[in-house]
């Protein structure tokens, strides 16, 4: 796993809350009460039992995780070269969303943030659709209206983030309450960041969840940072998981770089949801990359903090585990990367060939039926645009 270049040269005297020397918390998982299946070498730790996942399913997850990593590599380049406007990296975070998604059935609903392309891929969304979204083109079911990486698709039961971080937590809880009221067997999962736990919406959702016991799993992807804000500035609680106690909501901490552990605890929480209600899972992981393409982590963190996480790369660990099980080898690995890159190149080409949405489409979907006012505004704007284009043509 590449970690972004960062100069640790200039002394940052005001740097906050640095532990004496950076240690990856996953290293002392047992002591930290972080649930694990495999260690950094892909060996079973004996904490959680090895989950029983069909080999082809397991391999599909791994391949998706690699594809997700490859997408991030390319996304960053596309952004830096000006071909897409904005990029939100997800490098190092592949285990959480892929492991969790695997624990759900396709009928279940997933509400996701902005670092979770694997959810789309595991549900079978075509790669080109993702790139259409990144490029804001017609192939995006959301019609190019949203920032790159803010994806979802109702046809696959995937709900996109609201963009205001955390605001979709009570929405998800409400969906799960609705399923329970309707008598549906649907299960729900929602992913959010450590920073998002500070918003009132976290409070609302967990509180309603405690009282109403809907079938929802709240997954807090604790990647160490909310932009430049570390945990010590975000909250004084020792873990994010234990906040669940304040609401009578079952909770636990899992190794967020261990896809098998994530799968296991999420699966259990999902399966008990209709009987026992919600679970809050804190997945401990690390944002290896920039917050977004607009960020500069050099301003607020040391390279050493990042480096300790490199040996705990979720891809490496899962690959080693698969190799131990003889399900994987170097040849397959190389072929996979080659295929991913090629598919990405093809998807980019197809997506960039698509049209941008037209101004007229801006007015759609405000209401199911357009009001007279919007019809009037639309007619007015389109006429003006046409006139300006006519004049432009005359020059």
């Amino acid at each position, binding site marked *: 796993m590449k970690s972004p270049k960062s100069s640790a040269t200039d002394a940052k005297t005001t740097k906050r809350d640095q532990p004496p020397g950076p240690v990856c918390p996953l290293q002392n998982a047992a002591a930290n009460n972080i649930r694990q299946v495999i260690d950094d070498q892909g060996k079973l730790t004996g904490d959680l039992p090895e989950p029983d996942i069909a080999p082809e399913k397991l391999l599909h997850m791994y391949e998706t995780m690699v594809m997700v990593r490859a997408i991030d590599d390319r996304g960053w380049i596309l952004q830096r070269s000006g071909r897409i406007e904005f990029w939100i990296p997800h490098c190092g975070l592949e285990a959480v969303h892929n492991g969790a998604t695997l624990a759900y059935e396709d009928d279940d609903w997933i509400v996701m943030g902005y670092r979770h392309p694997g959810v789309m891929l595991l549900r079978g969304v075509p790669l080109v659709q993702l790139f259409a979204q990144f490029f804001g083109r017609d192939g995006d079911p959301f019609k190019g209206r949203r920032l790159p990486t803010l994806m979802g698709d109702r046809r696959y039961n995937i709900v996109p983030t609201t963009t205001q971080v955390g605001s979709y937590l009570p929405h998800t809880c409400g969906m799960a309450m*609705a399923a329970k009221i309707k008598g549906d067997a649907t299960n729900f999962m929602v992913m959010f960041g450590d920073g998002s736990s500070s918003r009132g919406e976290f409070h*609302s959702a967990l509180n*309603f969840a405690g009282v109403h016991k809907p079938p929802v799993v709240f997954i807090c992807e604790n990647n160490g940072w909310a932009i430049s804000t570390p945990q010590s500035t975000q909250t004084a609680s020792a873990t994010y998981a234990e906040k669940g106690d304040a609401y009578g909501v079952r909770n636990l901490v899992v190794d967020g770089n261990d896809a098998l552990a994530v799968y296991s605890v999420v699966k259990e929480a999902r399966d008990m949801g209709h009987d026992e209600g919600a679970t809050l899972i804190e997945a401990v992981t690390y944002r290896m990359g920039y917050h977004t393409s607009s960020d500069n982590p050099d301003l607020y963190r040391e390279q050493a903090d990042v480096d300790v996480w490199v040996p705990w790369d979720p891809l490496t660990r899962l690959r080693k585990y698969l190799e131990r099980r003889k399900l994987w080898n170097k040849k397959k690995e190389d072929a996979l990367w080659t295929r991913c890159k090629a598919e990405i190149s093809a998807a980019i080409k197809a997506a960039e060939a698509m049209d941008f949405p037209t101004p007229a489409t801006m007015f*759609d979907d405000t209401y199911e039926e357009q009001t007279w006012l919007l019809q009037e505004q639309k007619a007015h704007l389109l006429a003006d645009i046409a006139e300006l284009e006519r004049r432009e043509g005359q020059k």
Partner: protein
Amino acid sequence: MNKVMNKAAATAANETTVLEAIKAGMSDAMDADPDVILMGEDVGLAGGIFRTSTGLHQRFGSRRVIDTPLDEKGIVAHAVGMAMYGLKPIVEIQFSGFIHDAFEHIMFCAARYRWASGGQYSCPMVIRVPSFGGIKGGFWHSQSVEAYFVHHGGVKMLCPSTPEDAYRMMLAAVQDPDPVLLIEPVPLYRSLSASFERDGKPAEIGKARIVRPGNDVTIITYGPVLYEAIKAADELALTTGIETEVIDLRSLIPYDIETILKSVKRTGRVIIVHEAPLSMGLGAEFATVVQEKAFGYLHAPVQRVAAPDVPYHFSIGDDYYRPNAGLIQLAIERIMSFEF
């Protein structure tokens, strides 16, 4: 504040109060569609603090009539999710003054999910907003909040001022595919009653009603202050012969531009009356549109009669804060005598 909340309605046998009409609307909607639920603070056993839902908990059970934690943001936000999944939640905000915590979820979640998802998701839900002063409620319990929800599309907004409208607008709001704010006239809850047929027919959204015809001035208004406008118009007709047309707007988003313009083009004089503060009240938008679309017909600038830009005063607000018939009369006289 007590009086309005507890006052027994002096209702003729076949008449229904606004409060009973709201309840009838919810009850009929819940009977007709099992996906309709009611949610809010104290809406269950207590029947809501105004008693608009008395008996619904007993009829529909706690699965469909849900008492929530004390959290307006949470109530609306959970309803948004419920609506996205397929329920049709009716949520009650206890007093309009407490809706602001849910502002983001109304205007930037409920109102936008359809657009932001390219039409894939939608939030059909009803937000009940008990509004307006006249109950000695002070500045939190007497708010007129409707102006905050108009700045961009995505929600509809209705404001009944008769029992029949209360009933039919509730039905219309529940059936609408988009989120609807129902601005409920608290001071009329128990003081106004009328008979109508409880036939399950929804109101038509977007239609105003000419309550009192007239050829000299047009008053555009909505909510309880409508009755002050009528009173002013009637009195003035008697004393001066000035005939004021009073339009009850009823549907605030979308509003009935045709009815407005037809009247304006006839009278050439327009006064917009609302209880909300003057600046950036709905009157600002209506005045602007009217002068835009009927400039040549106007004999005088469009006038507004509204509350001042200060909070609602507990002790003297009911007397001096809201527009009343007297103040409206003066405005009519002024617009009739306007000279360039």
